[in-house]
């Protein structure tokens, strides 16, 4: 190959002040990734030998074996040039060092690297692995019908995903977004077909496994799971996002569990049953916990896909007032068993119960009522309606 490419790279780096990653270079010039890496290497050598002009910075893709926490692992990471020697020293065996990118600016974080590749890959989405060294004949794009089915499956509990993961190790390119995508596991590195040298996935395996489990949980929540996955290959850039959303996930799982409990009280709510829950009393010990759940419940409600419908039923609440008097109120309360929405609260004067009804989804509030009904029957003098309610719950 002639040396024209050196001028090309020079133009990109110096004149246009671009970040030239090997992936971007291979897609732009239409060459195999290994050739692109060599081109960058030669360019760097040449420029460094000249020792004139603007300083260049480079990042490297290092892979090797190292021992962390007592277990050996194969680590692949993108490092800046100034940290290269330190990282190599930490590894027991350094398997490969490739030039990842060349640029004029000293990068403070890895986001611009991802940004550079993003558009190039997006434009060549169908054949972004044309120049890639990772191949698998069995990896074919899913048809749109299969893709839809896969997206629906993603909402199923995460356990199945984890089992299927070792099987889906034949990724073609790390940042491509093909339809059937899972982060390449450690199996992918050792698969006989895939050459060990040309690893393009630039992530640490250990952290990737952690990332996978959090990723997997997320999938059960987010419907466009596949899109999220493709971004996860760059663990450095994405992990904080997971941390942010972890709280939501936990809440959503809790909410899911709560949902499963729901059917029992729902079936009993068809009839007009005068309740005697001491809604007021029992709420006092845990108003804080409920208040904390409020903002999450709003988010959750809007993001959940399948929900039960609600029906409005005339209900009367009996509870103890501040003065100790029994107060019965009737109001329409909606009961859920399919798609849900916001609804107006019933006319209730009780402080806690009304605030709850205003801020919670109806479903939650009724759940609470039901659960507290159970506990309350022990405390309060039992009335016939409450016993009925208790029995009907079953």
């Amino acid at each position, binding site marked *: 190959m002639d040396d024209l490419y050196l001028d090309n790279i020079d133009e990109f780096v110096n004149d246009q002040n671009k*970040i030239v990653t090997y992936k971007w270079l291979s897609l732009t010039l239409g060459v195999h990734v290994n050739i692109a890496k060599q081109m960058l290497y030669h360019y760097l050598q040449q420029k460094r030998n000249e020792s004139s002009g603007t300083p260049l910075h480079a990042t490297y893709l290092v892979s090797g074996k190292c021992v962390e926490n007592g277990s050996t692992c194969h680590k692949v990471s993108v490092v800046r040039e100034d940290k290269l020697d330190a990282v190599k020293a930490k590894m027991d065996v350094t398997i490969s060092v490739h030039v990842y990118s060349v640029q004029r600016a*000293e990068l403070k*974080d890895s986001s*611009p690297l991802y*940004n550079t590749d*993003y558009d190039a890959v997006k434009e060549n989405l169908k054949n972004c692995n044309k120049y890639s060294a990772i191949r698998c004949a069995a990896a074919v794009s899913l048809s749109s019908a299969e893709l839809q089915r896969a997206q629906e499956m993603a909402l199923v509990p995460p356990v199945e995903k984890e089992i299927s993961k070792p099987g889906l190790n034949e990724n073609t390119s790390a940042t491509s977004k093909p339809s059937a995508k899972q982060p390449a596991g450690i199996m992918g590195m050792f698969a006989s077909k895939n050459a060990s040298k040309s690893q393009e996935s630039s992530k640490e395996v250990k952290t990737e496994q952690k990332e996978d489990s959090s990723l997997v949980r997320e999938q059960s929540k987010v419907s466009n799971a596949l899109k999220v996955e493709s*971004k996860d290959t760059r663990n450095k850039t994405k992990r904080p996002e997971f941390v942010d959303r972890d709280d939501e996930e936990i809440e959503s799982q809790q909410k899911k569990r709560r949902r499963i409990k729901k059917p029992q009280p729902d079936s009993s709510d068809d009839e007009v049953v005068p309740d005697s829950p001491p809604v007021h009393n029992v709420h006092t010990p845990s108003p804080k916990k409920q208040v904390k759940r409020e903002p999450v419940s709003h988010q959750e409600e809007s993001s959940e896909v399948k929900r039960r419908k609600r029906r409005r039923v005339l209900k009367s609440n009996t509870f103890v007032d501040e003065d100790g008097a029994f107060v019965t109120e009737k109001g329409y309360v909606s009961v859920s068993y399919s798609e849900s929405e916001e609804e107006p609260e019933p006319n209730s004067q009780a402080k806690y119960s009304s605030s709850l009804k205003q801020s919670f989804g109806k479903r939650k509030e009724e759940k609470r009522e039901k659960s507290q009904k159970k506990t309350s029957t022990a405390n309060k003098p039992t009335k016939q309606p409450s016993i009925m309610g208790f029995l009907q719950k079953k």
Partner: protein
Amino acid sequence: MATLTRQDLNFGQVAADILCEFLEVAIHLILYVREIYPSGIFQKRKKYSVPVQMSCHPELNQYIQDTLHCVKPLIEKNEAEKVVVVIMDKEHHPVERFVFEISPPPLLSISSETLLSHVEQLLRAMILKISVCDAVLDNNPPGCTFTVLVHTREAATRNMEKVQVIKDFPWIVADEQDVHMEEAKLIPLKTMTSDILKMQLYVEERTQKT
């Protein structure tokens, strides 16, 4: 055009929203890249499908949001010519000015799905350019601060004072020394033209920074 007036109004608002969101991300990124604040307060978040660094400091975020909240009505009415992020040294002399020149789009057209993804692509490129701008700029002296200036028309400032848009966030007329920099070098960074907004980003840098 006459039949589309209502859509035009929404259109202007949409464009202003997009622009203000972008400016917020850009300001955070400038603060990160130019090391105005320690990198510890920044956190990676996602915008336009790429990771960007945003600050977690509540007061800083509130300041930037209030600033842009006041700028937005000016943009909607096409009265903001430039939004400038000025970086000043300890003596409050500007060392760098990141100028976002905003002009109305050459051709006003109705937005569509493909249009917005194209705009997203252009904004992504702008973000990328800001990330690598330290290749073309000299280092700043330590202890720098920043401020945001808006170049607009006099009538607009009157309106701003009249309309109590700004609750406790008064804007003052900038001093001459903030607006003009002596011995400035002009470094263009990026230009983008799209159907809903047209923006140019360049940096004016003082030759002698210390």
